[in-house]
């Protein structure tokens, strides 16, 4: 169910914070309420199905979107979810970008550990999402916001 290829990057530097307005052709879903979580994950499942991902991978995409949207709601609302279909070297994949202008994460490595949470929650979200996807990138700058980008490739 999972491709063994996996890239991981923690970027905490001077990369330009990507503006959601910059990507015009992609559907951007604002995340401001629990209903938005539902809409975002239904959009994600529909796109995954359209792309021909298995029902297992559709569930993975919907769940990942749910976890990332939930983090925006909890820690950094408002934020946005951007869904896009990738095609590189004959491979197809679905990319999810969760982006917010919230407080940012000071210690990303810590936030990625199982059990670490600042909200008394389970602290499973970020490490779990990383395990579920093929590519995972998190960029955060304190005071500016957080961007998590994941990709699930079609096997």
């Amino acid at each position, binding site marked *: 169910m999972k491709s063994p290829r996996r890239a991981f990057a923690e970027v905490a530097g001077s990369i330009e914070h990507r503006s959601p307005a910059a990507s015009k052709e992609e559907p951007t879903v604002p995340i401001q309420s629990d209903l938005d979580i539902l809409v975002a994950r239904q959009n994600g499942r529909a796109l995954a199905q359209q792309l021909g991902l298995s029902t297992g991978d559709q569930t993975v995409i919907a769940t990942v979107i*749910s976890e990332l949207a939930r983090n925006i709601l909890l820690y950094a609302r408002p934020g946005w979810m951007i869904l896009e279909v990738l095609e590189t070297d004959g491979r197809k994949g679905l990319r999810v970008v969760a982006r917010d202008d919230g407080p940012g994460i000071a210690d990303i490595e810590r936030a990625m550990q199982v059990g670490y949470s600042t909200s008394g929650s389970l602290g499973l979200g970020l490490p779990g999402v990383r395990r579920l996807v093929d590519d995972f990138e998190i960029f955060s700058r304190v005071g500016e916001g957080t961007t998590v980008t994941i990709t699930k490739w079609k096997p």
Partner: protein
Amino acid sequence: MEVPILKQGPYLIGSVQSALTDKDLLHLRDNLVEKVGRLRSRGVIVDVTAMDVMDSFASRTLSDIAQMIRLRGAETVIVGIQPEVAFTMVQLGLTLQGVTTALDLEGGLTFLDQRTKKRGADGAARAR
């Protein structure tokens, strides 16, 4: 969408009909905890067959339901977790520790019958 709660003999059955918002799930929790006392139910089944996503919030809320119901003296069984959902939950580390599960409604009812037969008419629940 409100989750309907049916009374079937000494049991309550919460039958999730579609994807739920966080608020819907919290309503389900509150309604079950209230009804189980008012109707003196001995067991609760939450049928999640229709839930296509079980994230950390949903998982936690189901655990909470089971624990609250137990403190009210009744048993809870979660039934109908789909294979893809089970797969994703485990990868996320969501294992519903301490919560009883069954394949489907039938399995859940059989379990409750066994459990409640062993105890008194009004029942009592034991922590695991």
